[in-house]
């Protein structure tokens, strides 16, 4: 690219101004990387949710329970290949800030339903053997330095035992990893049979939180969801069946509309960057009226002058943006700023590409008007203004 030295040297004309502009673009894109990672952490489950899984919950709200007896009725619906359930346990370990999810599940059908949970076969066997056994995700295990064999007391806000106490003890028999990068490895799962037997009668016995069902054909998911809800219509506990993604999203919505919050922060930042960069470029073009006139006199066409200015603004935006994205990627790789509260924390490649597209767009938008101005400059008049 023989014009590169010309474009490059124009950026070096006012070094301080260029550096300051680069810095503000850089900061904006670091922020973009960081917010993308946070957004991904809080809503990542949505995109990773199995397309062939539906979640059945109480029609009124997610916290209302459903009878365990629904399982058999769901299994009879055609197109349903597997049914399993979970219940919200709502426990805390040691102190209440240390939140992570713990749910009672039926081990075999639960693991079959969730192939993204990777557990060693001998650990699975130990779980099936051990009544008070629990498996926990790598992230939480690392956070509390739990090892296989540890006995963990968890205080439940919801569930009391037969003896009236609320502290439940579990034995860690397995530590699972995620199959995908976005798999949540913070929860703890323990056995439903132990839970149902030990929980105090009179409250919730025989009831579960929600069901996950697997459909044989994802294309029929919507139709099957309707069949399930029809099955329990007019019963004491009517259901609402949704694809798993929508279910996870309903949870995340309780934290706040993360996507909306990140989007509004980012738009404010990028609006500012647009003004800063746009100002730099248009100022630099204005200062150069005479030089642009000389280029045209020499024989540069209007189109070439337009391209020169656009390339200059794109170069500026791409350098600042790429540095910012690279730094953001490195920063997010250092780890979760909450010290393990987030189920996952990484800057997704998809957003990296969006970010790079963003740099280019920034360059094009900020360069557009100055470039147009440069293009329209009349040579004879530009030369008089030296």
């Amino acid at each position, binding site marked *: 690219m*023989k*014009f590169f*030295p*010309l474009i490059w*040297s*124009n950026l*070096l*004309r006012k070094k301080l101004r260029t550096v300051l502009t680069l810095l503000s673009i850089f900061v904006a894109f670091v922020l973009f990387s960081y917010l993308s990672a946070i957004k991904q952490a809080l809503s990542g489950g949505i995109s990773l949710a199995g397309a062939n899984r539906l979640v059945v919950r109480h029609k009124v709200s997610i916290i209302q329970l459903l009878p365990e007896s629904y399982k058999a009725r769901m299994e009879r619906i055609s197109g349903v290949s597997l049914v399993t359930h979970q219940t919200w346990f709502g426990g805390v370990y040691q102190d209440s800030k240390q939140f992570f999810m713990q749910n009672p599940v039926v081990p075999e059908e639960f693991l079959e339903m969730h192939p993204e949970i990777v557990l060693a076969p001998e650990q699975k066997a130990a779980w099936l053997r051990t009544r008070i056994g629990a498996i926990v995700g790598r992230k939480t295990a690392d956070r509390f330095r739990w090892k296989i064999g540890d006995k963990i007391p968890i205080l439940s806000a919801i569930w009391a035992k037969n003896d009236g106490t609320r502290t439940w003890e579990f034995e860690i028999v397995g530590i699972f990893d995620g199959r995908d990068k976005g798999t949540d490895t913070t929860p703890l799962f323990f056995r439903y049979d132990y839970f149902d037997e030990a929980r105090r009668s009179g409250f919730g016995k025989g009831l579960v939180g929600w069901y996950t069902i697997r459909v044989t054909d994802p294309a029929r998911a919507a139709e099957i969801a309707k069949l399930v809800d029809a099955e329990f219509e007019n019963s004491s506990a009517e259901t609402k069946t949704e694809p798993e993604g929508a279910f996870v999203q309903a949870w995340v919505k309780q934290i706040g509309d993360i996507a909306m919050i990140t989007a509004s922060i980012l738009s404010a930042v990028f609006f500012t960057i647009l003004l800063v960069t746009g100002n730099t470029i248009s100022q630099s073009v204005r200062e150069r009226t*005479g*030089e642009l006139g*000389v*280029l*045209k*006199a*020499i*024989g*540069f*066409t*209007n*189109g*070439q002058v337009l391209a020169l200015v656009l390339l200059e603004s794109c170069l500026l935006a791409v350098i600042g943006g790429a540095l910012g994205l690279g730094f953001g990627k490195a920063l997010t790789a250092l780890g979760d700023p909450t010290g393990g509260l987030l189920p996952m924390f990484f800057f997704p490649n998809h957003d990296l590409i969006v970010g790079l597209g963003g740099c280019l767009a920034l360059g094009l938008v900020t360069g557009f008007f100055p470039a147009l101005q440069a293009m329209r400059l*009349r*040579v*004879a008049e530009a*030369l*008089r203004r*030296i």
Partner: protein
Amino acid sequence: MNESGRNDGKSPLVEVDGVEKVFHRGAEEIHVLKDLHLQVPAGEFLALMGPSGSGKSTLLNLIGGLDRPTKGTVRVGGESVDTLSDRHLAAWRARHIGFVFQLYNLLPVLTAERNVELPLLLTHLSKAERNRHVQAALAVVGLTPRAKHFPRTLSGGEQQRVGIARGIVTDPTLLLCDEPTGDLDRKAGDEILDLLQALNREHGKTIIMVTHDPHASARASRTVYLNKGQLSAEPVK
């Protein structure tokens, strides 16, 4: 008609015919050139003189295709410059015209050799070929040792020599100089005039030079005077 060109049988390189140039400043019309005729044969070194504001730069711009006449035709090397589209005009300038400006108009961010290279960026020459042309042009103006210097580190005379090297590096048909010595002292000015004269005599370049300085016009092979929008062979008192 005000015929101030020579006619030695073959058609001249530059033919300005019945040119009129009107500028608009608000509602006011400024008639700068009126029914102007000029012929410049190939190989001539023409000096163009006249009071400030008489339209010398305007005429030079019309010949160089930087502006269009309000009326009349400008032909250079048989090409009707006034009817070319903007894009073709730019390409035509790149191929046929070299400009030298009073204030040198070098790009401050580029070294002398990169400044000289600018017009060659518009050609299909390879990097090596471009370099060869740049070095040759710098040698002609005697600035080889200063090739890597930035304009601000060069004297006015040296900057103007870089400007001339940039003007001739593409070997243009016509070199247009607008007061090339206007900002230089006598000695530096003389060196530039020596250079232009050498380019004209030894390299056969056709040159049109605007100047205020009779000392400069004395170096030209012919001088014409612009006054009240018209050319004459004698200065008007």
